């Protein structure tokens, strides 16, 4: 439990762009480095967090829960939120005063493509729980096109994915 809290506290500080950016690293730590669960279980836990209301940061609580029960879940969530929250708290006013500073604009522009790369990686890792597989690839491509092309609530696409999963997997 302390190990997962420690990892998530570190992850917290590099989570620019929020949870989607750190999904690939979280999966790598939990599945590949520590072997706490399989890639398929990781994708399922992520699915539960997506299906519940609330911020997607709750996936950290579920990963912690899977590793060390409910106390593990609360510890993982707190570990992920507190360092970043402390930073937001500290930076809140300062950032606005630096609105026109050139370094702020350079950092902001640099982070856009990096976030794109990280979020796409997170999607790839979550969509390939069984390695590259045509069924998963079809479901993931369909939902990717749907979210990029329409403005409907993403819950519809998740439900459609669940239905397709029932028949395909």
């Amino acid at each position, binding site marked *: 439990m302390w190990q997962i809290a420690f990892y998530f506290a570190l992850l917290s500080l590099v989570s620019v762009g929020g949870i989607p950016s750190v999904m690939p690293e979280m999966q790598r730590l939990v599945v590949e480095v520590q072997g706490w669960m399989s890639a398929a279980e990781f994708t399922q836990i992520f699915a539960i967090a997506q299906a519940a209301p*609330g911020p*997607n940061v709750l996936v950290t609580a579920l990963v912690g829960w899977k590793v060390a029960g409910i106390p593990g879940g609360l510890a993982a969530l707190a570990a992920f939120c507190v360092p970043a929250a402390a930073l937001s708290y500290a930076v809140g006013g300062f950032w606005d005063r630096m609105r026109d500073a050139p370094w702020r604009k350079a950092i902001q522009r640099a982070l856009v493509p990096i976030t794109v790369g990280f*979020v796409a990686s997170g999607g790839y890792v979550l969509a390939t729980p069984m390695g590259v597989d045509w069924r998963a690839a079809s479901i993931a491509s369909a939902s990717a096109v749907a979210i990029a092309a329409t403005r409907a*609530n993403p819950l519809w696409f998740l439900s459609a994915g*669940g239905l397709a999963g029932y028949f395909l997997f």
Partner: protein
Amino acid sequence: MEATPPQDAVRPPAGLGELYWGFLSIGARSFGGVLPWAHRVMVEERRWIAPADFAEVLALCQFLPGPNVGNVSIVLGRRWFGPAGAAAAFLGLMALPLVWVFALALLYADHAASNGVRAVVTGVGVAGGGLFIGTAWKLARPLAQKPWALALAAGCLGVIAFGRVSLFLVLPVAALVGVAAARKDLL
């Protein structure tokens, strides 16, 4: 009928209780994403904050590490009521979703042995991965005319998704490259 206040009258929450309830209602209703509900409750229903102000706070919070809307709750809670406000807003936002997600997880744990249930949940997870890819696509659209930015994005994707290199290594390197490129107006 009473006189309605002007459209742009912004009135921050009167106390910690109102702040907490407001964020509780954001968390409770946020199926399928928190951000639209955060906007609806704070900007449209309760008029705590002006739309442009909200957009700026959000831009900051998307830049900062950590959960985006979680950071919004901290920054605005602090602005209105200091540390107690930050805590009240954050806890309000998280309270109900946390109960929900644990309840769902326990329910799932009871039924995970069933192949059908596992297949549905895997399908939802894979579709969720697809949503990330689609979101990345949308974020990348403004970069279409910027080959350096696309190359940086593709490089990050390649080393992380396929090379499985740690983010702790990729982020500092990519940030240095990105800031250097941005200063030369390549991004």
